[in-house]
């Protein structure tokens, strides 16, 4: 495989994607929204002070402390931001990144079919694997860049906003870092593979991007179970989940690669 050819394809795809204002907006705005929503949620107790905790049902704080034993020694002002940062924020990052990556992946794969640009590309002297790698790079590079950049910005702003309540840099806790930086890319990759499979069947970018939607459901289940205290995402559990997702990634990736051939892309309805 000639990596150089894949890089040429990735560069073209990136230029093509970022030359569309609509695409840029669809990719960047969810992250901006996510950072703002995270900040807003975390900053609530800071702005409202102890008044804020009047709106939380009695016993709920104790339940949080059971779910997150490391919060036992925390003050009231620290408790809620920590809970949001550990239980809510990672899921926000996963959901928004998944949505963003499915748009860019569908644009790269199904977009070529929808815009009828795929045929000369398939007729060029490149192998299927070079083309596939180029497209994967074009999808994963902006997605991961946006994920890590927005997470970095979020970390900075959250520490700034909560500086009064915490007198140390508390964000991100290890669990949040693992969820965003390890589970995040693996889960995004899984979504990308599903969109690639969908692209061989779908007629439009929109249709193909929906294939990643199926991955929102397991996230929601874990999220709700966690808030209800049914599941506690500890470090070991997160690492084990990463391993399981990696195995699923590998199998789905192979399936996605097998659907990626010129005949399917040209002849499929």
């Amino acid at each position, binding site marked *: 495989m000639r990596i150089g050819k894949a890089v040429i*394809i990735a560069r073209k795809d990136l230029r*093509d994607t970022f030359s569309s204002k609509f695409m840029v907006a669809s990719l960047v705005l969810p992250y901006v929204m996510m950072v703002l929503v995270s900040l807003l949620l975390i900053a609530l107790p800071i702005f409202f002070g102890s008044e804020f905790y009047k709106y939380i049902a009695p016993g709920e704080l104790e339940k949080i402390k059971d779910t997150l034993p490391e919060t036992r020694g925390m003050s009231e002002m620290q408790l809620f931001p920590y809970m949001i940062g550990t239980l809510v924020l990672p899921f926000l990052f996963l959901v928004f990144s998944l949505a963003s990556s499915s748009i860019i992946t569908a644009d790269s794969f199904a977009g070529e079919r929808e815009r009828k640009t795929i045929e000369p590309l398939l*007729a*060029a*002297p490149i192998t299927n694997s070079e083309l596939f790698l180029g497209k994967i790079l074009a999808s994963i590079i902006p997605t991961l860049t946006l994920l890590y950049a927005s997470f970095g910005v979020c970390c900075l702003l959250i520490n700034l906003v909560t500086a009064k309540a915490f007198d140390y840099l508390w964000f991100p806790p290890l669990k949040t870092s693992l969820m965003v930086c390890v589970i995040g890319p693996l889960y995004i990759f899984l979504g990308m593979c599903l969109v690639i499979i969908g692209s061989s069947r779908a007629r439009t970018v929109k249709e193909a991007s929906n294939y990643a939607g199926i991955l929102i459901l397991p996230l929601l289940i874990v999220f709700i179970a966690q808030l209800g205290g049914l599941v506690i995402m500890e470090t070991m559990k997160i690492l084990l989940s990463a391993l399981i997702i990696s195995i699923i990634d590998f199998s789905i990736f192979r399936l996605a690669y097998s659907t990626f051939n*010129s*005949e399917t892309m040209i*002849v499929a309805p």
Partner: protein
Amino acid sequence: MVYLEAVKLAKKIGDKQVLENVTFGVGKGEIIGLLGPNGAGKTTTMRILMGLLRPDSGSAKVAGFDVFEDTLEVRRLVGYLPENPCLYERLTVWDNLAFYGELYGVQKDELETRINRLLDTMGLKGRAFSPAGNLSKGLKQRVAIARALVHDPPILLLDQPTSDLDPVSASFVRELIKKLNRSGKTILICTHNLIEAEQLCSRIAVINEGRIVAIGSPSKLRKESGEGYTFEIKSLKPIKKYLNVLRETVGESYFEIEDELSAVVRVGRLESISHLIRNLVSAGCELVEVRMLMPSLEDVYLKLVRES
């Protein structure tokens, strides 16, 4: 020397047998047209020759390379123009060409010179940095042709290069194809435009329902498809006066009175027409014109398609 060869190609897509036993060859430097109605199998044949579709049986070779064993080598030798321009509309004309140039391995310095030359040839110099999506259909087709030429291939496969173009753009493209052929490029054109096929191609392969029904030069096709010869005769006196002569010489069903002074006659052999002329003159007919009517390529094509 056969430079491009399809041997007994067969291909089924879904339930439809798209190609059946398609065999033809293109000589080096030749320009051949694959002529047929929509859905005849022209595009599928091209796609097989590019290695984009695998036939169910049969083989294809380009410059001696097997299309499916040496696919990349074949693709390096061929410039392919699909049915649609297939341009990245958000990218500029220059970026579209540069991307394919890089993909085909053209060196950076050489690529710049080549793109400039192509833009010049195609009359796109002023549009180099316009997004391809802003161009008219004719200009998009020119960019697509430039893309097929960016690696300077010796062979060109052009799928309906002038379809949907206005007469000016179509004429530009035809002239360009002629020029490319004169410069030594071997060209296979898919078209359902008979005038285009006749103007451009030294040979035409008529394809219908996935089968090649005839192949040869336009004049050969005319000769082969014709049933004898057709003549128009004009007289100074009403032709009806000589109906008996016509009946006795060529037979009742082989002539047709066109108007008062002319008739169209079909004969199986050339000798028959000279016999008819002699008999008409002997009967007092003052002939002023005897003209052989050539069947048009359209007649030939329609006949071949109907018969197949």
